[in-house]
């Protein structure tokens, strides 16, 4: 796997999102989709390691805060990912490389659009993460 433009997407299990995002794999060969029970379960320490070493960008696709199947978990993870993005900013890294897409059952099209714009953004900006 070419380390410099791999994109890793952690996708929450609900509402067949995994199939939705994996459908993009054909279009973006460097995309790796990893299903997780809830993106709140994800420890940002893994994200830091991925961004510093194995991956160019990390995308999290999960339920919208008010609509999370686990009701409360995503509120805490919202703060955790806020702090994770701030840590990236504090260290001079481009915090847009950690992209969080909130989705809910009705918005599949919007999710795909957001995904596309992000992948487009990645293509335009060359690698200045300094790693």
């Amino acid at each position: 796997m070419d380390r410099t433009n791999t994109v890793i997407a952690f996708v929450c299990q609900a509402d067949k999102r995994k199939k939705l995002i994996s459908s993009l794999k054909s279009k973006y060969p460097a995309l790796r989709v990893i299903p997780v029970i809830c993106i709140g379960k994800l420890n940002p320490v893994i994200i830091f390691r991925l961004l510093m070493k194995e991956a160019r960008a990390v995308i999290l696709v999960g339920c919208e805060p008010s609509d999370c199947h686990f009701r409360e978990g995503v509120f805490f993870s919202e703060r955790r990912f806020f702090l994770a993005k701030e840590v990236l900013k504090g260290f001079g890294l481009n915090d847009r490389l950690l992209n969080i897409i909130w989705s809910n059952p009705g918005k599949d099209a919007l999710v795909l659009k957001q995904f596309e714009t992000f992948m487009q953004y990645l293509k335009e900006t060359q690698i200045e993460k300094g790693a």
Partner: protein
Amino acid sequence: MINEIRDAIIQYLKSVMKENDVVLALRSSSTPGILTPCILRNKADLDQIEAGFFHLNNLAVYLSEFFQKENRLSTLQGYLYVLCKPCDTKAVTQMISDQQINPNKLKLVVYACEGMADMKKVKNEIGLDKDIKAIDLHLTELSLTLLDGSPLSIPVSKVISSKCLECNKEYHLTMSHVFVGDEKKWKSHPYSIATAENKVLLQDQKKGKDLFDQLKAELSACIRCNACRNVCHACFCSDRCIFDKPKMTVGFLDKEISPIDNILFHMIRFYHVAPNCTACGECERICPQGIPLSHLYEYFHRLMQESLDFSAGSSDSMRQAMLSYRLGEDLV
């Protein structure tokens, strides 16, 4: 040398210390300009206590040894007296709200602190080719004898720690404590030359790539000796830390000491301590490689205040920055 505040502390402790009370304080070490934390168990040793301008250490980090891991109850029968500068009390309060210690068997001895020394500034004043044989404080002058016996005196204002220049001479404690010294007089003239709000941080001056390059250059000097982790009161997963690989089958961080892994080490550490860091400055003071960690903890300390209006160590309520939320914040 007469040091009224120290004698007042010793006198107070002698009056209150009972049979199996324990005092956590500082005593002189044979290295000029630095004191060694000590645990005193009988009255006779109280005379060894030192305090004042060379009280650089934040003793809060030693507290967790006196409390059992499972239920945080004190392992002592008597009281634990802890010698604290007013700014150290924030660390103790934060440890209480982090549920590392519980205050019922704890008594803080806070005293009228007139600022602490910054030994790096003292070293710069005397030059890199000389060294200190003995150092002492005479009111507003530091009187030193150098290795070749020549005396030198430096005004305190030149070597006072920059943290003290922002000291608003306040502390708020709900737990049982005593203030040694004249509190009104102490509060009457705060230093606060550079107030905390209008402080310009590195992250304000530099952004993106050149901020990253500067931090990468600074952190590449890191030798990963874990001193900043072990001295930090907010870094309390003592025996199951993510960086001690055997405990975790998959280490998030290799033990490789390279610029990238050093950045990853400090990123993970600051992500963990940002919510409960009280900016006490211990990590920067003791770094053997002189890495200016204030470039990082100042940023996260201000971030917590501005974005989540949470200032670590200000109240021992159990509210935690990362364990509470407000609806409709949409931070991300």
